[in-house]
């Protein structure tokens, strides 16, 4: 009967992950946490093996266990962890780090004076100081310009908050209430998780708990191996590129060699370009986290995340490349490189497993950071958010429209009605565009236009839309989709087109038009049934001209 008890403990751990997830969402002060859900929460064992995780974004899959392991490396022997301690860290180059904006809260859990587990979360705080509002810059050249670095420090020691650190944070960020609110939300979520873990141990005993978590990790590995067996063995290679580093230089190639066997999956990124000037760099720990999300998509997408399910995966890359950048390189736009790396492995494997991976999607977070002084309240605002676009078609369905990139997951757009109250912005349109592309037996999903008109007295925009020169890719005969870019429509009638931009000055009345890509098509367009083409025309997803040119269908006038 013990078998069933173990399962019940495992389910309780997953439920605890869910609870921590909700707590953080509901108490956070950063829209990027509570709407975009740019965070993850988890539980690890005392050694840092991942037991359960609740994710808002797909990409933080290697972030939590690694940050716990890095914590354990720093705190041992005399300088040890005590009951009541809370550690915070945002180091990008180690311990599952990404960029400074993503801050981890690490909470050691003690049971009768013994360290038994960790609860941990990592969330994107809207403001951490640095040269530009939102702590993101496409023109940073060193990490020192990107904000406050918190290198695994105890913000709470034996239950007592270190006020010196709190003061230090407060005086180094632009929105101190929001930043500290996020800190307390992170601690609250971890604390609740810790309480639940302790009550599980109290109920079933520590030995049974340890047995359950070992069994759970082995189970994850078994599930993963079963799935891996269904992917054709082989060695697959491909190349992608980062088009621009924010200084007009580029493109910079990224290379990957994927080896699949029945019990192993190796992603080798050696041969990628060296780390670049600018912030389009990804640290190795970020690369691992990206690879894990693609790996999970093709092996155990419906299973709760656990460390065992990643045992068969290995990532290889020598130091100092654009996907394994080292200190003190700037990394604040790491997410664009991360998605490019995910997209590369995706594109390499999609032809082999089209039932698991569709054609190329928008492949960019299309994140915008707009800051200014609110016209009515006089308060400083930063609107930070990812944008939705088109996804690729697959062997069984048309591409989805209006979805955030693969890096986001249970993330939400910001409602217009909330946005217009909070920020000095008015939305002029929020609509699908038809900039062409994505033709196939299954049609790629349309990208979007989002127009932000500045109504405050001046504002600044920082944004990174990679894919300004490269279309989303079609699959098995499907056509490529379209581009990501943004326009500044000046009130004098002139306009500028951008891919990366930092702190572009705007005046009241100027409009930022964000354009996200249409996804790639799947299969030969000639195989698309006529009634589907006609319905697309009726709905305005494609034009009559396109119907005729690419599908040989002539709609009635």
């Amino acid at each position: 009967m013990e078998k069933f008890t173990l399962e019940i403990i495992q389910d309780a751990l997953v439920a605890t992950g869910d609870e921590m997830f909700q707590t953080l969402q509901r108490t956070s002060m950063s829209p990027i946490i509570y709407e975009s859900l740019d965070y993850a929460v988890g539980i690890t064992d005392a050694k840092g093996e991942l037991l359960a995780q609740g994710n808002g974004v797909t990409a933080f899959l290697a972030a939590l266990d690694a940050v716990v392991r890095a914590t354990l490396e720093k705190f041992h022997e005399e300088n040890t962890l005590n009951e009541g301690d809370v550690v915070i860290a945002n180091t990008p180059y180690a311990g599952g780090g990404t960029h400074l904006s993503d801050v981890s809260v690490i909470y050691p859990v003690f049971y009768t004076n013994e360290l038994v587990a960790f609860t941990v979360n990592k969330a994107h705080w809207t403001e951490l100081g640095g040269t530009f509002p939102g702590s993101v810059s496409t023109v940073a050249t060193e990490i020192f310009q990107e904000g406050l670095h918190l290198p695994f420090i105890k913000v709470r020691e034996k239950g007592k908050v270190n006020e010196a650190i709190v003061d230090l944070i407060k005086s180094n960020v632009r929105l101190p209430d929001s930043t500290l609110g996020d800190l307390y939300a992170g601690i609250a979520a971890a604390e609740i998780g810790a309480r639940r873990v302790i009550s599980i141990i109290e109920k079933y005993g520590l030995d049974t708990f340890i047995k359950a978590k070992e069994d759970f990790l082995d189970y994850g590995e078994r599930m993963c191996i079963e799935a891996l067996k269904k992917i054709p063995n082989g060695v697959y290679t491909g190349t992608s590129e980062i088009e621009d580093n924010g200084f007009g230089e580029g493109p910079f190639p990224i290379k990957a060699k994927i080896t699949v066997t029945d019990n192993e999956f190796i992603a080798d990124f050696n041969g990628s370009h060296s780390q670049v000037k600018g912030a389009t760099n990804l640290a190795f720990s970020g690369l691992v986290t990206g690879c894990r999300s693609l790996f999970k998509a093709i092996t155990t997408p419906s299973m709760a995340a656990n460390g065992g399910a990643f045992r068969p995966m290995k990532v290889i890359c020598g130091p100092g490349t654009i996907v394994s950048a080292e200190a003190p390189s700037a990394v604040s736009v790491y997410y664009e490189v991360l998605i490019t790396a995910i997209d590369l492995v995706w594109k390499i494997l999609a032809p082999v497993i089209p039932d698991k991976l569709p054609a190329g999607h928008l492949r960019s977070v299309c994140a915008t950071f707009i800051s200014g002084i609110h016209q009515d309240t006089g308060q400083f605002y930063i609107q930070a958010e990812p944008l939705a676009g088109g996804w690729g078609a697959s062997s069984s369905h048309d591409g989805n429209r209006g979805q955030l990139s693969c890096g986001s997951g249970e993330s939400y757009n910001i409602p217009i009605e909330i946005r217009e109250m909070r920020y000095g912005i008015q939305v002029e349109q929020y609509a699908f565009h038809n900039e062409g592309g994505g033709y196939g037996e299954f049609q790629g999903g349309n990208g979007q236009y989002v127009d932000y008109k500045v109504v405050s007295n001046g504002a600044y925009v920082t944004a990174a839309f990679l894919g300004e020169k490269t279309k989303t890719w079609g699959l098995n005969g499907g056509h490529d989709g379209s581009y990501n870019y943004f326009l500044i429509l000046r009130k004098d009638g002139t306009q500028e087109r951008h891919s990366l931009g930092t702190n572009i000055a705007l005046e009241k009345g100027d409009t930022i038009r964000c354009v996200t890509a249409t996804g790639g098509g799947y299969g030969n367009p000639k195989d698309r049934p006529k009634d589907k083409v006609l319905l697309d025309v009726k709905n305005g997803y494609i034009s009559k001209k396109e119907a005729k040119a690419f599908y040989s269908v002539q709609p009635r006038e």
Partner: protein
Amino acid sequence: MRVATDIGGTFTDLVCLELNKQTGKPTGVRVTKSDTTPSNFEQGILDTIEKGNVNLGEIDFFAHGTTVVINALTERKGAKTALITTKGFRDVLEIARCNRPDLFNFNFVKQPPFVPRYLRFEVEERMDYKGRVLKALNMATLKAILKTCTEEKVEAIAVCLLHAYKNPEHEIALVKELAKLDSSIQIIASHQVTREWREYERTSSTVLSGYVLPIAKKYLDQLKEKLGQQGLRDTPYIMQSNGGITTLNDVKNNPITMVESGPASGVFGAIALGKVMDRKHLIVLDIGGTTAKCALVENGQVKITTNYKIEHSRTQAGYPIQTPVIDIVEIGNGGGSIAWIDEGGKMHVGPKSAGAMPGPAAYGRGGKHLTTTDANIVTGRIHPDYFLGGELQPDYTSIEKAAKPLCEFLEATKEDVAKGILRIANSNMVNALKLISVNKGYDPRDFAMVVIGGGGAMHGADLARELQVSELIVPLNAGVFSAFGMLMSDIRRDYIRTNVITLVPEQWAVIQSTFMEMEEEATKNFKQDGYANKDIKFTYYTDLRYAGQEHYVKVLVSDFDANTPLDTIIQYFHKAHKKQYSFELDTQVELVNFHLVAEVEVEKPDFPKLVVQGKTIEEACFDTRAVDFDDLGIHETAFYHRSQLEPNMKIEGPAVIAEKATTTLVTPLHIVHVDAYGNLLLTEEKA
């Protein structure tokens, strides 16, 4: 006589409360069930009336709950609906919130919108976030829009404009003009459905309201007519999702409020029972064939939320409906839930269910999978004579066959597999029960648990033990409790308005005037139904948060009037926030939503008491058999007919109490008391 009818997925229930004509006190309850008739729901009601031999001419009060709305939605049988919205925003409905709950699946398929793009129209107009007109409404294109709608055979039009929650002026003008131009199409605008912000949620709510509008109106009209023909004097009251009833005319204007009326009335039945029994803090658990639903009642109140979604799951975003619905957590675990083993060798129970056809293996109708019900049979917890209401004997051969693959894989006996299934099913339910209690900062020891539905009493004792609730209540007629609840509901309307303000003394006038305006609206609505001012009872809630947060905590402002100090409200909030999230902040507090509850009390009968006839416990006992209580051991256990139990009887566990609609399991740790109303109260013996 007072009658309530409830249409469920499988059965239509009728509860008839007979009253003594002189004293007005209840003398007895009659319960009738008949099959639900999906093509023609009102027929099911007429069937129960006939079967129950009820004379509609003698009915003083008739309440009715129906699944007609949720059915139309989930089966996509609603009207062809169009949408008119602000220029530049017709794709809001399809873009939705851009989220992907199935976040590791890159080959997911997004749920399609209820209105296709070619039926989503735009008009020139624009309000700003303060509700000021930026661009005047231009109605010149309406004729062309209506022409297309007619050509496309559109039956309903939903109107939702940006910031209309703040200022509905343009929507009102549009609705008026549309009705003038074409009276054949039914029209509903967002401000009639919800006054909360978030344009996607509001658009979705309005579209779904439009989608069910024609079918619901038609249903309600026919119901009224047919019941009238049978002699019913007064128009029936209709159950809503907020746990209250309302008039038929009122619900016709906005039928989406009926969407979750079934579960709501079950919970309100439990609250009414709690009042009689003097239990204010309750956890209500309803276990059916496919799902289990639970809700928490604090101080006799259940939370109302507008974050309701249909077809929402771990893998799908669902469709939001911003209508007041009682806060229920539902999980895919019921009597028919199937046990299965995944590729990693782990056993799960549910969410897939064997349903009514083929049903659990024990039904012997070809069910090949072992279910929770089968596990209850294997452990001896269900008496064979009481299986499926005593209609048939369990098919043991079929159970044996269904258990075999699980036994082989797990290298376990059938008995161990059965116990494993029950442990996992119970653990799933405990996790759901914790979601509404422990996770929200409540201590289950302060609560009594009321179990209803076919499976509630079967699992209640184990769950009560695990959660450590103070006591377990198995009400009389637990199987038809939803219908029962309707007899105990008041007329209730919830008014919710978003109006974001900082809680500082200067804003007091705004708070005052907003609630006043809402009161006036409520009074006007009630007046149309013939209710006077003095009959209306108002309750005031505010949704509060720390400035900068997004999510809010609902705070009851008791005895709200001009003298209520602002500080009291703020202190309530700090306390509530700390309870739920373990910390409070020294930050300004913001009010997001005003929430006014307007109720008119309906005269309600008492619960009928059981007559003591002097029967003995020995007479009630009909069998003794071995029952497996898992970790509490296998015991020779006495089985009792519930119908033979009388008030003040006391039975020590282990015991099983059987009735047609359900079975109550009493573990060796529990004692049962039968109260004056025939309810079973289970408590744990003090060790």
